[in-house]
């Protein structure tokens, strides 16, 4: 199962997908509120925390009766996958975390997630301002509580068609959560793939996670940026292949 990170949808996996589909059954999905998901299922309360998104993963596994899956999560989805595996460990055989971070905040003196609270608040504000240009920015006010699926469809179908009204709760849940305490409870064999130069999730964060998760390995991929699965799809694929076979 390939789980996309914050800011995009399942399209993020498109570069890696061709190498996987010949040998594996691959499940792709969009979290509720992302991509082409049915946004009428969005529940403000449920998606306030990453647990709500973890429930999406479990709901899909339940619906498709999936067992012994290899869960590959990018960025925040690594943490979402961890929550899901802690809740229903029997479903997960292995977890691959691509560019994960359990906490983006700097919490001195022991932990440096890379960002101050001000930075993350600016990010939410920046997102809001970038989303004003979206067609349905004011739509929920005009339409009332019930989302009209027809109108949602009118949303830009292009890459990363993230609906601003749902992206902000996702951003809040992603960037303001602190999931460090859960790491040591994860028993599922886990591989952490970290980029050698990623200003969202540094190697130090990868090392921290590797230390905390009992059954984990860390691989640092020499690359720039946070989206390893897009920029280094073959390297990521090979690493995953070696890990699961």
């Amino acid at each position, binding site marked *: 199962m390939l789980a996309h990170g914050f800011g*995009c949808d399942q399209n993020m996996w498109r570069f890696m997908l061709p190498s996987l589909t010949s040998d594996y059954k691959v499940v792709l999905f969009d979290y509720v509120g992302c991509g082409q998901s049915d946004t009428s299922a969005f529940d403000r309360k449920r998606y306030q925390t990453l647990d709500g998104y973890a429930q999406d993963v479990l709901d899909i596994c339940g619906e498709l009766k999936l067992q012994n899956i290899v869960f590959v999560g990018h960025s925040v989805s690594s943490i979402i996958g961890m929550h899901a595996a802690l809740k229903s460990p029997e479903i997960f055989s292995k977890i691959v975390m691509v560019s994960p971070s359990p906490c983006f905040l700097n919490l001195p003196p022991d932990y440096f997630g890379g960002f101050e609270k001000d930075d993350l608040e*600016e990010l939410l504000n920046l997102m809001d301002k*970038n989303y004003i240009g979206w067609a349905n920015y004011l739509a929920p006010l005009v339409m009332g509580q019930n989302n009209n699926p027809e109108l949602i469809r009118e949303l830009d179908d292009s*890459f990363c068609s993230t609906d601003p009204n749902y992206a902000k709760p996702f951003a809040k849940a992603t960037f303001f959560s602190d999931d460090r305490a859960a790491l040591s409870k994860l028993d599922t064999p886990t591989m952490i793939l970290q980029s050698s130069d990623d200003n969202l999730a540094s190697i130090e964060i990868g090392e921290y996670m590797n230390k905390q998760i009992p059954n984990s390995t860390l691989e640092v991929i020499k690359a*720039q940026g946070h*989206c390893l699965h897009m920029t280094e799809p073959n390297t990521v694929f090979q690493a995953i292949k070696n890990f699961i076979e």
Partner: protein
Amino acid sequence: MKTPTLECFPCILVVTDIHTNKLEYCNQYGTELLNLDSDKLMTYGLFDIISKASSIFFESYIRPTIVSTGSCQEVQISLTPNTNEKVASVANAKLADSKIYWSIYVAVARDKLYQELLSAREHLEAKTEELTLLTRVDPLTSLLNRRAAIDDFNQKTNELDINFTPTSILLIDIDWFKKINDIYGHDRGDEVLITLSQTLKRSTNASDIVARWGGEEFLVILNNSNTKDTQVFCQKLHIEASSITLSGSENLSISIGGSNLEENNLTKPDIMEKYIKQADIALYEAKAKGRSRTEFFDHLHLT
């Protein structure tokens, strides 16, 4: 007349490498605005000139979009000419030969307008929520009103259609309510309605629907409650209601008509009417049999 020079455009032009994020070009206007040392331009990276928040937005949105589609238009970012200064700007970016070509415009006024728009939106959202709440609540009893009950029931039947659990519909009517109003006055009548509403709220769960259906009639939809559970609920409710005293020796009594949802045809448009009608027939029966009792539609031997 002087020949035009490209350096006079009031727009920051920057080229960065898609892989390393290193600055490969910056025009004079940009170098000055961003306080860059023009002799050491190649030592800068993209993240030296944009805020940390902008860098997250770059990694999670701008870069994936550029990698996938080749360009990204009209994104707002913050430039950082100094460590403590952020300048709102709008950028267009295009990918060519592994380089990102940026044209960036200072957009402080636009940012201010957008901030005002955001505040207006937040205000509207809060107002909408407040008004929506008002349109759903019965002012006297603070229970859901009839319209909200219909909305919630329709939503519930959609959920039950996917994942069915036993659900009961109860119509509850205060016995001899007109007399209560006539003998003790309308104020006392209103008090009785409020007290019974509180009892209903207290005896039900948050996921149940509790509404004032009209006049002295209430609607309760019990979630995840089989026939036996519902019967127990009704018995308790009769006892609870009878503890509401009208005067000296006279206590309140209620009649209840009940109906149980079936698993089929839950999404038919007239589904609510059907079950309300069943509960109403049962309620009529309870009244006919002497009041202060519960009848279930399923148990009636209708001819």
